[in-house]
């Protein structure tokens, strides 16, 4: 690497703030995701707490310069704890008019607006379907507009490298990055290491040009008068330890590795590509040296079925998908619960129904995974609450699957799958083992092995092929309890349906009780689940700071519910259930606990903002009068 230490010193004034929310927007080919990821990592290394929200179109390269092709990355970094990527923007960096007009509404009044003014020519306006340049609009007076000729400045900066016009143009996102780094006093070292790692060593022309563009962006910030000062965000006081930044899908993959190690198993991972779950496959297939066997199957059904085959053979079997793929796996999930074999089914939810909104987030598969199978076919369902929580929850799921001998569903969503946060790296040597036994002797000394004879949790033995004397057949037909032989006996069927239900209910015995954040009783309980945790927690804490009697119970175990949940609910006068769906958890809670829970439902493919939740909490608590149920 040829870089000298990157300067972070400035001669201008520095204003210290507690947190910044910035969004970087441009064409989907402009490298906004890369820019965002680098800013995130750099801020994390600086010790800030962070939360991110990448937002990109489903099309790989939508027509250049159009509104459909706008790709964005939002990050909040702060010296205090943050649980969301932020509601409104302190700064917006827009690389073209389409990106500007589709994002401007989220910039606060007086916020900093940095644009690449070279891309506001007539042809750019036309692509964005604009008659007048938004930079000429009177509304611009509401913002601190900084027009930067990024394309020209980048071209000049990299002139010495003799790049083609196209190659030189591609460096402009690093120019923008340099400017942003100057603005927030970010250290460029990690990004310089990235540039030279990705584009080659010190001899690479492209790498050197990108470095030059980055430094030119920094220098530009230091020079121009329009930016009178830069900002400083101090490190947050996080618990002691070594941290790294982690993305939700990556945490899911790493959690699987940890679960495998804890249980002495090797992973068989089968999936079919689908947004937003594919990154788990991309991540896991790197780890063949951990003994991980990844299988890209011919379809979703083959993915889950091959996993069932691997599970029968004694492997740690995992399949992942999103809503449409889960729909296809449905019949096989029913088979796995009938075979009573451990299996992890991970559903990274996206906007539905049908193909829906592939790259946008939603929480609308809850009913599908709890109920979406033929017959009486309950399964445990767990839901991750944040990117780092994916690491934890998938291990809990594997513990349940193996202790109870059944498939377990893990819910994630597009928001936490692509989002990231600092992660306190665990001490691997302190991870508790997950004990699995495969019988080697018959459980029926008087006769043939009984594959459906159960233990105290109602789990059957996981006897695997290759074991002498334990040959047995399993299948989707109803079977006699104990022997596992096909049975059409009416009483046996009723008994088996109850056993399978009780087995799922027993999961609650293996899981911790529900926790409450805030007063243990009072006016309002906010009941949330899944990826809305950050927004709900932040809103509840803000309301608590205003003196409101409100608490949060964020559920991670969707089926069965924690055993103390009903009792918790009964201690509050009102219950609010915010969900990114039409009220699926609300329906379950109302049915189960006969409580008049109120919903706050948003189905826009976007996460909650803290302010909209805070408004709702305030509305429900200000006069003490009860809000009527809102059906959307």
């Amino acid at each position: 690497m040829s870089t000298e230490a990157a300067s972070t010193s400035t001669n201008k004034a520095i204003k210290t703030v507690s947190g910044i929310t910035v969004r970087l927007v441009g064409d989907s080919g402009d490298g906004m995701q890369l820019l965002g990821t680098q800013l995130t990592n750099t801020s994390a290394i600086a010790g800030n707490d962070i939360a991110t929200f990448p937002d990109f179109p489903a099309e790989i390269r939508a027509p250049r310069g159009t509104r459909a092709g706008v790709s964005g990355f939002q990050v909040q970094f702060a010296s205090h704890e943050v649980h969301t990527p932020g509601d409104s923007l302190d700064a917006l960096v827009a690389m073209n008019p389409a990106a500007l007009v589709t994002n401007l509404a989220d910039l606060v009044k007086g916020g900093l607006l940095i644009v690449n003014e070279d891309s506001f020519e007539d042809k750019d306006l036309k692509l964005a379907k604009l008659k007048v340049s938004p930079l000429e609009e009177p509304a611009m007076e509401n913002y601190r507009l900084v027009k930067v000729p990024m394309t020209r400045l980048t071209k000049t900066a990299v002139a010495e490298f003799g790049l083609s016009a196209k190659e030189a143009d591609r460096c402009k996102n690093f120019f923008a990055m340099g400017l942003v780094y100057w603005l927030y006093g970010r250290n460029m070292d990690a990004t310089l290491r990235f540039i030279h790692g990705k584009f080659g060593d010190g001899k690479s022309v492209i790498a050197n040009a990108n470095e030059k563009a980055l430094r030119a962006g920094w220098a530009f910030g230091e020079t121009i008068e329009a930016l009178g000062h830069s900002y400083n965000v101090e490190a947050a006081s996080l618990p002691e330890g070594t941290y790294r930044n982690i993305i939700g899908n990556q945490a899911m993959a790493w959690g699987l590795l940890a679960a495998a190690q804890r249980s002495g198993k090797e992973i068989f991972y089968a999936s079919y590509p689908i947004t937003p779950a594919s990154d788990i496959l991309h991540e896991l297939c790197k780890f063949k040296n951990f003994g991980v066997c990844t299988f890209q199957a011919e379809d979703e059904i083959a993915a889950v079925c091959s996993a069932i085959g691997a599970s029968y053979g004694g492997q740690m079997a995992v399949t992942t998908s999103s809503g449409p793929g889960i729909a296809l796996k449905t019949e096989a999930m029913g088979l796995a619960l009938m075979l009573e074999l451990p299996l992890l089914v991970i559903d990274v939810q996206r906007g539905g129904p049908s193909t829906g909104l592939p790259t946008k987030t939603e929480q609308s598969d809850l009913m599908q995974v709890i109920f979406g199978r033929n017959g009486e076919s309950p399964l445990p369902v767990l839901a991750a609450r944040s990117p780092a929580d994916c690491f934890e929850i998938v291990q809990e799921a594997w513990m349940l699957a193996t202790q109870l001998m059944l498939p377990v569903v893990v819910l994630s969503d597009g928001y936490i799958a692509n989002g990231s946060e600092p992660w306190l790296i665990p001490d691997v040597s302190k991870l508790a083992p997950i004990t699995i036994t495969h019988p080697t002797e018959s459980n029926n000394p008087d006769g043939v092995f009984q594959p459906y004879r159960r233990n105290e949790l109602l789990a059957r033995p996981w006897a695997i092929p290759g074991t002498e004397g334990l040959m047995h057949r399993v299948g989707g037909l109803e079977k006699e309890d104990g022997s596992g032989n096909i049975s059409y006996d009416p009483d046996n069927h009723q008994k088996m349906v109850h056993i399978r239900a009780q087995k799922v209910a027993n999961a609650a015995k293996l899981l911790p009780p529900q926790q409450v954040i805030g007063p243990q009783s009072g006016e309002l309980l906010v009941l949330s689940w899944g990826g809305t945790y950050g927004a709900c927690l932040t809103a509840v804490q803000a309301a608590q700071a205003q003196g409101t009697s409100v608490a949060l119970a964020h559920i991670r175990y969707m089926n069965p519910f924690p055993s103390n949940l009903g009792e918790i609910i009964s201690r509050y006068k009102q219950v609010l259930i915010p969900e990114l769906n039409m009220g699926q958890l609300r329906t379950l809670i109302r049915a189960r606990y006969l409580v008049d829970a109120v919903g706050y439902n948003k189905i826009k493919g976007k996460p909650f903002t803290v302010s909209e939740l805070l408004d709702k909490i305030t509305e429900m608590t200000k006069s003490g009068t009860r809000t009527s149920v809102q059906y959307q």
Partner: protein
Amino acid sequence: MSTTLPVLKADDFTSDQDIRWCPGCGDYSILAQMKKVLPEIGVPPEKTVFVSGIGCSSRFPYYVNTYGVHSIHGRAPAIATGLKMTRPDLSVWVITGDGDALSIGGNHFIHLLRRNVDLNIILFNNRIYGLTKGQYSPTSVEGQITKSTPMGVVDHPLNPISVAVGAEATFIARSVDSNVKHLAYTLKRAAAHKGTSFVEVYQNCNVFNDGAFSYAQDKATRDDTTIELEHGKPMIYGKDKDRGIRLNGLNLEVVDLNDGKVKEDDLLFHDEKANSTLVYMLSRMRRPDFPEPIGVFRDVLSETYEDAVRGQIDQAIEQRGRGNLQKLFNSGETWKVGV
């Protein structure tokens, strides 16, 4: 200590379950031959797994005392693939039917064959849906009257051997349920092949499609309506061994050996290693223009899927060392707080 291995018998592979196929069903014969062949293969029952889908044939696993999975419709090849990929030490058999393998499970069937997973797939072809009581299947012949086609089948039937050739299966064979000697031989050949072994068995459904293959079953007719493929031998058939198959340009033709104009050397000699175009031509031999081939169409060696997959895992471990979780977690950019 004695090192003598116990000699296995057919009874060692007989389960305690009552068989529930219709009396007279062709499945009985296939089960009997399988149980006869399994001890000869030499794999003990605990190392053998039968995987099936849905249909009459798919009840098969219950009737053999091995490990077994009676799964869902069409998915046995996928389940068996996952099992064999992770447990290459097991001998895995897929039992399927014409509806199970070629209709609802068509996708898994072709992908199993093209991947060349080392397992055996036995397709009981009776040209009818039996368990659902008599609807037409993807191998039913055009015009066939069934419960769901009162005016006759209009679909063009799939030829399972042709599909297998198209998917580049490495072992392709056909046998007949009642031809017990040939069936036993074919099953043994399938077991011996490393890679996916595909065997189509003409199987009589005496309740819903009785006599569909009587031409190939009856001793009186079968010598004239079928031709037994034998590696390295000229393709001759007929009760009096007086007809042969010759390659004429890009077509096969039936020739008469009686008049002495065509010599044995002029005939097509069967080659199990032949290119797939020729195998495809054999698969298209259909009554009444041709005798239908039984025997091994193709038997070639190619790397198995599980070997290739395990090979990459072994290579990754060799090159990078066994994965270390703590090292992975601490890789890349990290930072310390308060330590």
